[in-house]
């Protein structure tokens, strides 16, 4: 064998090739295959799922490596692809527990009355307003929700359909009424901390509730714009209930497996360990892909589930694209802000502040967010190119409800960590990775002292690792930040938010398109519907 790579042409021709077997790529593939198209999914890694992946990193222990909870998965995707038949099984995580630095705690229990009583321990006034706040957020989420299932209108050169969408949108916003519109405006512009301060006086309450405003975003709870991210996370839905988080059996890789199984049941093919080098473009039209192995595969349509930077600037020669789009994509904010630590544990660690140490694991998440100052300081430390020495953490122990992920009596712990700046001012992530891991474990052990002695194995992922392993630019978990300037008809760029690209038959379907990040399947579904509309 010579070392040079020879080009071979694949004999099989496909109707569509999907680049990237992440959950959105698989969703697009499933919808296209269901519509009768001959579909091939190409995945760079040895396993499907992208960032929704479960892997046995340590013998006997399955880690939900990157993403770890499900809530935004669109009900229509579950229904239309019959995902339950293919193994989707989600246990709701209905509560959360926030230990405080003084040994006290704040808990959101699964039961409303319990939660009210709990908040009353901190502030009777806040207990009253908690219900009011939830109702408002529910109302806002219900009002904004239709937008999630909508193809964003093109404001640059609106089509007849876009004008229809705009009219619908205008009517919808008008229908919100004064009060809701007023709040919508506040949510769109304020910081999570300020918005929450309009309702609550207890610091830990504001800290714990600001979490949804900063997850995956390089912003602190006091940064304007975070109130919207808060609302985004309120749009989660499980069995008709809003704001519910859940844990998928076997980790979030189980969602990807269900999607892959659905796609295959409709006839789609999947190939792992098959990195794509480039999209083959002829006369401004995508005609197939060139693999890194040298193989070329041809198809009528090529869809990229990768993030906008990869989709436009890596897989395509930028001379094929208009200059303003190249500029927009180059300016698209990625700014990876989070890391992940996964632990194999010998037992369940006890959070000393908890009234019932093991119960907290069963009902949901443990939030290391003891105060607003703690959160903001964690951000401050990372802002100028570092990582938090005492980071914010979202801790889930999936094995407390799903024993299939570890040997009997053992557990896995998933720790989502923020902040970790992708750009380190001093040093590089390869050297700093384990220091970052130590900061995480040390901080967590302040609240659960017996954690350290239970650790059998530790996996640390910095934003740099996430980029390297999962091809997510700057390690951004949403394929681009979920700030208002990067949403809806601006995601990923004005004029190119309808899943198309300037190259004919080349489409985008990743989280870098509307409705954005999280395990939603939303971009994948809407992209497939656009492709079917455009090619039928």
């Amino acid at each position, binding site marked *: 064998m010579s070392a040079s790579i020879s080009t071979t042409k694949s004999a099989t021709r496909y109707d569509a090739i999907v680049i990237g077997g992440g959950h959105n790529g698989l969703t697009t593939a499933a919808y296209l295959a269901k519509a009768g198209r001959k579909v091939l999914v190409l995945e760079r890694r040895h396993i499907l799922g992208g960032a929704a992946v479960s892997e046995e990193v340590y013998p006997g222990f399955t880690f939900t490596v990157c993403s770890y909870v499900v809530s935004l998965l669109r009900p229509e995707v579950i229904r239309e692809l019959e995902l339950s038949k293919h193994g989707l099984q989600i246990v*709701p995580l*209905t509560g959360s527990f926030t230990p405080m630095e003084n040994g006290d705690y704040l808990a959101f229990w*699964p039961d409303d009355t319990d939660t009210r009583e709990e908040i009353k321990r901190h502030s009777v006034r806040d207990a009253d307003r908690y219900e009011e706040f939830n109702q408002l957020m529910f109302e806002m989420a219900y009002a904004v929700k239709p937008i999630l299932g909508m193809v964003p209108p093109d404001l640059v050169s609106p089509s007849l359909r876009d004008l229809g969408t705009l009219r619908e949108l205008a009517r919808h916003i008008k229908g919100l009424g004064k009060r809701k519109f007023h709040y919508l405006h506040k949510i769109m512009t304020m910081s999570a901390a300020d918005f929450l301060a309009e309702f609550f006086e207890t610091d830990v309450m504001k800290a714990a509730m600001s979490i949804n405003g900063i997850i995956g975003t390089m912003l602190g709870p006091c940064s304007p714009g975070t109130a919207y991210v808060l609302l985004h996370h309120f749009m989660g839905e499980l*069995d008709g209930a809003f704001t519910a988080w859940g844990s998928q*059996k076997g980790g979030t890789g189980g969602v990807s497996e269900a999607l892959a199984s659905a796609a295959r049941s409709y006839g789609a093919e999947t190939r792992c360990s098959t990195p794509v080098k480039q999209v083959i473009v002829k006369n401004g039209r995508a005609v197939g892909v060139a693999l890194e192995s040298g193989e070329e595969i041809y198809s009528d349509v090529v869809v990229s589930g990768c993030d906008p930077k990869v989709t436009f600037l890596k897989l395509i020669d930028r001379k094929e694209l208009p200059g303003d789009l190249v500029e927009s994509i180059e300016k698209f904010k990625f700014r990876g802000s989070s890391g992940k630590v996964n632990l194999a544990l010998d037992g369940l660690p006890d959070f000393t502040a908890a009234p019932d140490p093991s119960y907290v694991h*069963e009902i949901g998440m443990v939030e290391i967010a003891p105060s607003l100052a703690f959160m903001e300081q964690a951000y401050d430390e990372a802002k100028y190119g570092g990582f938090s020495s005492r980071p914010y953490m979202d801790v889930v122990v999936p*094995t407390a*409800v799903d024993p299939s992920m570890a040997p009997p009596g053992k557990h896995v712990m998933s720790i989502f960590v923020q902040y970790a700046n992708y750009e380190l001012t001093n040093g590089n992530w390869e050297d700093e990775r384990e220091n970052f891991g130590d900061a995480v474990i040390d901080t967590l052990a302040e609240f659960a002292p017996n954690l350290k002695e239970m650790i059998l194995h530790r996996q640390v992922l910095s934003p740099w690792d996430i980029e390297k392993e999962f091809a997510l630019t700057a390690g951004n978990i949403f394929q681009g930040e979920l700030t208002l300037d990067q949403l809806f008809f601006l995601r990923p760029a004005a004029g190119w938010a309808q899943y198309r690209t300037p190259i004919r038959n080349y489409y985008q379907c990743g989280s870098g398109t509307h409705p954005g990040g999280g395990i939603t399947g939303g971009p994948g579904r809407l992209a497939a519907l656009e492709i079917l509309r455009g090619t039928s």
Partner: protein
Amino acid sequence: MQPTPFHSRTAPLCVSNSWLEWAGYQSATMYALEHTHEYHAVRMATALFDVSPLYKFHIHGPDAMRLLDRVLTRDVTRCAVGQVMYSAWCDDAGHIIDDGTLARLEDNFYRLTTADPSLAWLQDNGYGMNVQVEDVSESLAALALQGPTSRDLLQSAATTNLSRLGYFRATRTGIGNARVTVTRTGYTGDLGYEVWIEPDDAEHVWDVLMDRGRSYAIKPAGTLALEMVRIEAGLLLSEVDFISCRKTIFEVQKSTPLELGLGWMVHLDKPFFVGQQAIREEKARGPAWNAVGVEIDVLALEAIYAEFGMPLHLPWEAWDTPVPVYVDGQQVGKATSGTWSPTLKKYVALARVRPQHAALGSTLDIEMTVEAVRRTVPAKVVKTPFFDPARKRS
């Protein structure tokens, strides 16, 4: 209400303090303040149910088989030692009295579980036979251990190898220091076991199972979770999906095994059983009703809610109040219980309809109320069990 033999263990765990009466016993509806996690424990880990309130009868003696074969609709002569059978039994008119499981523990020794008191019925049917019927309801405690990890959990607690205990089979084993009977049966449609225990050993067995169970994410569970999973499994509940003919004097409220979809357990070819002649005749003319499973169209329900300016609301508990079922505006039957299935992501119900509307794929309209306004929602006849994982039998 009496406490069950497990009360000293269940009471402190029952944080909700929410109990109902079941056959005179105090039975937890849910342990936590909501039952969601108890439901999911059945489908993802192991749930532990205290099913001691079941009525239990021991039938001994040389004519034990003869008696049971006379009473039960199934061919009891085919029940091997170590086998369990699910069967119904009827009155002379072929109306269903009850259903339950029969375990053959020895050649001439059987155990029958029932929903209602049955001593007199069994004794009276054994007139002139050499058989003893004993009501052991109070002298036998019972736990149901149900869910995908139940096999490994039970094995970790048992003194003998249970790996070869097949579906609907019974065996004797030890748990901790206690001697128990284990049957691979349950009311959940999942992999699961029922453990039959001397009341004096009840607390000990509970403690061992809960202790070992920690490694398998065990959760004690109550009747609210049980209701949901038994509907997913397509299993009937007495006094909800049918009424025992011994509990009603009104013909319209009685039903037959054929009407309830239990025809497969009626062995008309055996020499005799109570109600055989009537069921033969019923079979010849065709049953008046057919039991069906239906899947309610959630999108249509969502559209109705939208008319009210509301998002779709799905029930988070099973319902068991009968509602009318229509075809073309004419009532053709009733749905007797239903639940949103978080596992299947489907809204399913058990119903009884006129035979011409019972074919798989038929569309029915089921009555639902939104804000106390009566509406109908399309529902499709589908196969039951709605949920039938391979692990149940494997």
